[in-house]
């Protein structure tokens, strides 16, 4: 536990926070990679998920695509990207997108596809156009699942952005990798603690967003707790329809989040 004391005293020394290689700068770099990767993942995954969830066509594409993306190793893609495109924002963004897209795609698809059919039909019978049905009815109802996907995506990206440091790209992983390289394990522990703290803070903020997005009055009853749950729901749902139907007949959309 001596390491822990050293690490904590490092973190609580103000001098270690300033400067171009200080904790504050490293956190900013780490957040930059995270935010860019999450935004690009959202831009790619959410429209595709909305389209497939709304039309019900191409479900097979989602399941296989999600599986294939998850099977690609982030570290390999990152290092290959650095060799091909040089240092910069592109390699970490592409590599981290591989982690961000699967939960977002699965969450958006499952959210839209699980909206009560009666609600959608009612919207249609009132004369809403298809795009309005999607944007005004299906998306708000699917919001808890979409944000649940966002939460999983952000969590995985912020945790994995650590490996960017291996390719001299900075971020909090710097401490981990330098600490191991020079055998100063307390420095590695500083990195580990900071990344975990950052992940916990972001996760708590997004958990609150998921909770606040549950439509209707039922939200006070439960707190959401999705991990990879939405993807599991998607995969099991495609195989045994019974479970997802049972969940959706339960009348509470947040159940499908995986709670």
């Amino acid at each position, binding site marked *: 536990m001596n390491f822990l004391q050293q690490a904590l005293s490092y973190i609580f020394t103000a001098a270690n926070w300033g400067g171009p290689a200080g904790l504050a700068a490293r956190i900013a770099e780490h957040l930059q990679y995270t935010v860019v990767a999450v935004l690009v993942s959202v831009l790619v995954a959410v429209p595709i998920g909305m389209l497939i969830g709304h039309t019900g066509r191409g479900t097979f594409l989602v399941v296989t695509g999600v599986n294939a993306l998850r*099977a690609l190793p982030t570290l390999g893609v990152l290092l290959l990207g650095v*060799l091909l495109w040089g240092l910069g924002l592109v390699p970490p963004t592409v590599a981290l997108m591989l982690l961000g897209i699967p939960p977002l795609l699965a969450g958006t698809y499952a959210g839209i596809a699980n909206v009560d059919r009666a609600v959608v039909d009612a919207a249609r019978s009132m004369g809403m156009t298809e795009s309005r049905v999607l944007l005004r009815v299906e998306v708000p109802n699917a919001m808890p699942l979409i944000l649940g996907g966002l939460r999983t995506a952000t969590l995985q990206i912020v945790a994995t952005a650590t490996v960017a440091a291996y390719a001299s790209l900075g971020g909090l992983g710097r401490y981990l990798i330098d600490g*191991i390289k020079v055998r100063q394990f307390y420095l590695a*522990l500083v990195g580990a603690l900071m990344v975990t703290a950052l992940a916990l803070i972001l996760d708590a903020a997004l958990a609150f967003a998921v909770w606040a997005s549950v439509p209707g009055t039922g939200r006070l009853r439960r707190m959401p707790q999705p991990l990879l749950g939405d993807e599991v729901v998607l995969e099991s749902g495609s195989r045994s329809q019974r479970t997802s139907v049972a969940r959706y007949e339960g009348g509470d959309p947040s159940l499908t989040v995986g709670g």
Partner: protein
Amino acid sequence: MRYLLSHLDDAWALTVIHLRLSLIPIVLGLLIAVPLGALIQRTTTLRRLTTITASIIFTIPSLALFVVLPLIIPTRILDEANVIVALTLYTTALLVRAVPEALDAVPEPVRDAATAVGYKPLVRMLKVELPLSIPVLIASLRVVAVTNISMVSVGSVIGIGGLGTWFTEGYQSDKSDQIIAGIIAIFVLAIVIDTLIMFGGRLLTPWTRASRIGRPKVKAAA
């Protein structure tokens, strides 16, 4: 691609290490999570507590956990055991939530019927509820397996073997061919394991296919 074909011996040796590091945690995770999940399924407080603990464990970045574990448990700092323990933690964290959910998917009438024909709770769990929850459980297991295989490669950054060493070696000697070979090898490995688990699940649940054929007839009769 050429690198992969000219280094098949290396690939095989690294694959064995990679599989050992990613599959042992799955087996250990299942052994912990299935009994634990079955125990907590009916107790709301315990279940919520487990879910929260699991969520927090899942938030810890893998690279951080690989490094921090030796400070908590008596292993050496760059030991394979750290990876196995860390991945076991993640696997358990995910499965311990999936098991009660899978058990929830067992229809209530089936449970009641099993009780009515005289099954005691423990035997009912082993012979009726757990087998019926296999399809949902398999779905989680596939996610865990693929995630683990990809996560082991991250360990190479801190000097742990497996196919990820091709990434670090290839990067240091500026050989993109070697990195591509590593990506292909891990991708194929993940897909193969994923497919094997899927077929394993099908073999264990012959009734799911039977009911799918039978379902339209039931609907027509109703």
